[in-house]
């Protein structure tokens, strides 16, 4: 019965109820979407890398190293020498290692020089392994990459992340040209180095999707510049060729690049960073200390989880500001709701006295007003969830294409329910003002 009375009462005040409802809808939508995006961002952030015990690079801050090695943002100017790399992975505690050579790009996508260990040991999310949509791993390099076996015909293999493949529209088997340096516009095209796409990874929702993975040896060889001939270098920097032309000239060019042999193509001289998996997690701190105190080369070892946490705290300040703003908007709209009910109280005096004379308890009047407030708030919450879900659903493709953001459509997590619960509790508390007013006037009625 009280439900029906509340419903009719709200319908009776359509306009002011609708406006209050819209104000609440906007603020709840804001709150829900901010919370959802925050949670999703945090999730995908922490999901970026897992199962890696240590990341080692040249001495730098832990956030710098994390950004360059995992997020491919910025680059560490210094590298780790091949000798140090070999020395550290020789540690009996080390189970596996993924060497990373960073700093190159292909049409705006980061090029990662690595080995097949990358596909074997890299984990993201809940310790999930990388898997292939099509194709497979590098074929022309030995799996035990520490001793390189290079294809001498100057063809290198490349494995693309899901986004990179999609946006560049590359298929397995396609031949591409790599450029040197980071950025979309590169001045030195190593046209003589043709790469063949051998595999495309499954979508992971991590920076791996934007990666162009090539063999460590391949990166090494395109970097290997002739010390003896600066002119040659200059020429190769200015040469802009299409894939077709490059193919035509491929063989001749390679003949000129005898410096590759000089450099010992099979042997990389340095790596930008490397990821380590240890046999026992207990050894993490011990190995970290050993690396940090390495006497021969200044190195840094970071624990990814710790570094991610620190980075998130930096980013987290922004999301807290957003949260505070949306909470303030919510409180403003709830006060609006309370004001609406309070203002209607005067015109409801007669109604309250009728209810009393019919035998309504003062508590009936109290709950009538609470019910009206709560149903407006609940309605706003439900519509807000529908609205936000719909918006995410419709904009998902665009977000993915534009920002590489993949938001889960299911926003009804425990977390969202908490937010809605908090909104309803706040509504109850703020609606106490008019409800107690109504209760009092019902009691004091004469």
């Amino acid at each position, binding site marked *: *019965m009280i439900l029906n009375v509340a419903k*009719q009462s709200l319908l009776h005040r359509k306009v002011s109820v609708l406006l209050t409802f819209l104000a609440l809808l906007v603020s709840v939508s804001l709150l829900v979407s901010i919370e959802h995006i925050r949670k999703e961002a945090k999730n995908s952030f922490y999901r970026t890398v897992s199962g890696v015990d240590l990341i080692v690079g040249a001495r730098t801050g832990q956030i710098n190293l994390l950004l360059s090695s995992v997020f491919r943002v910025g680059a560490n100017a210094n590298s780790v020498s091949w000798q140090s790399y070999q020395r550290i992975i020789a540690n009996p505690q080390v189970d596996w290692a993924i060497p990373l050579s960073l700093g190159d790009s292909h049409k705006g996508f980061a090029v990662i020089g690595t080995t097949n260990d990358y596909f074997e040991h890299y984990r993201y999310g809940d310790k999930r392994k990388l898997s292939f949509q099509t194709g497979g791993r590098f074929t022309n390099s030995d799996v035990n990459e520490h001793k390189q076996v290079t294809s001498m015909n100057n063809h290198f293999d490349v494995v693309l992340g899901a986004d990179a493949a999609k946006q560049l529209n590359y298929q397995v088997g396609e031949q591409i040209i790599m450029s040197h340096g980071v950025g979309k516009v590169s001045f030195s095209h190593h046209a003589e180095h043709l790469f063949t796409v051998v595999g495309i990874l499954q979508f992971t929702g991590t920076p791996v999707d934007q990666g162009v993975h090539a063999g460590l040896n391949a990166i090494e060889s395109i970097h290997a510049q002739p010390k003896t001939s600066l002119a040659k270098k200059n020429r190769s920097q200015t040469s802009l060729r299409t894939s077709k032309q490059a193919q035509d000239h491929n063989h001749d060019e390679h003949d000129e690049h005898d410096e590759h042999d000089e450099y010992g193509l099979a042997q990389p001289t340095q790596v930008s960073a490397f990821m380590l998996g240890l046999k026992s997690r207990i050894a993490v701190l011990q190995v970290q200390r050993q690396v940090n105190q390495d006497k021969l080369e200044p190195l840094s070892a970071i624990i990814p989880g710790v570094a991610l946490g620190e980075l998130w705290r930096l980013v987290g300040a922004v999301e807290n500001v957003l949260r505070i703003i949306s909470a303030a908007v919510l409180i403003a709209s709830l006060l609006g709701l309370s004001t609406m009910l309070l203002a209607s109280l005067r015109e409801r005096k007669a109604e309250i*006295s009728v*209810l009393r004379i019919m*035998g*309504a308890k003062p508590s009936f009047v109290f709950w009538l007003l609470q019910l009206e407030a709560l149903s407006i708030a609940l309605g706003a919450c439900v519509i807000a969830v529908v609205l936000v879900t719909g918006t995410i659903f419709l904009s998902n493709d665009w977000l993915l294409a534009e920002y590489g953001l993949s938001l889960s459509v299911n926003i009804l997590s425990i977390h969202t329910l908490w937010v809605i619960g908090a909104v309803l509790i706040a509504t109850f508390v703020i609606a106490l003002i008019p409800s107690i007013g109504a209760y009092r006037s019902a009691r004091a009625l004469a």
Partner: protein
Amino acid sequence: MSNLLNEAGADGSTQPSKNPVNTLFNEQSPAVLVESVVFSYVSGKRIIDIKKWRLNKSEHVFLYGPSGCGKSTLLNLFSGILTPQQGSVSILNTDITGLKPSKRDCFRAQHIGVVFQQFNLVPYLSVLDNIRLAMHFANDGADKQSTDKKSTTKQERIISMLQALQLPIDCIQRKASELSVGQQQRVAIARALINKPDVLIVDEPTSALDASAKDAFMKVLIETAKSSNAALIFVSHDQSLASHFKRIEALFDINDSAALGPELDSKV
């Protein structure tokens, strides 16, 4: 105003009771019994001071009360919305002043019907919902008459009640605020009588009506009150309405505080 009939209650309108509750009491047991009631508002002067006043079952009384003699206050005491500082108000031998507030609200819903001057209905509810709401409150506590409160019989009772009050049946779904004042007042009677109250309190119900509507309203009111066996307390300053009643009393005859003079009354 003369005091034609005293508390002996020799009025001819008493009819054999259909209400099973009534059979528990003899003819002389009062519907309303007021004893030594004193009431004043907080930090105000004494407004009500009644030594003793009684109303028999099914008896109709016209209380003449010009404005300013504690009329509304007295009616609120009868209906248990206000409680006196001293003394007791008993309805059907139940001392409502001694009841807990929530019990009193429930008792009011079940045993007392009230019709005001105006604003008797929740404006945004339909006629049907207004009456249903009154039934809901009466059923809230005790489940007296629960057997005949099934929704189908409910609807039938409401319709027959509205018919008795000469209201068009199609008004049942209309909002109370859409009806004319005369219709609203008749719906108010239906709402007040739907729970078969033992006492019907009516306060200036005709002040918003024109002369012809007034007469029609009074006829309908007296008849339905009679047929539902309720004791009727009718309060008005309009002496022309007294002709409908056998027992007629002046409010300041029973209220010693009012006898001091209306001009001293601060709150009515």
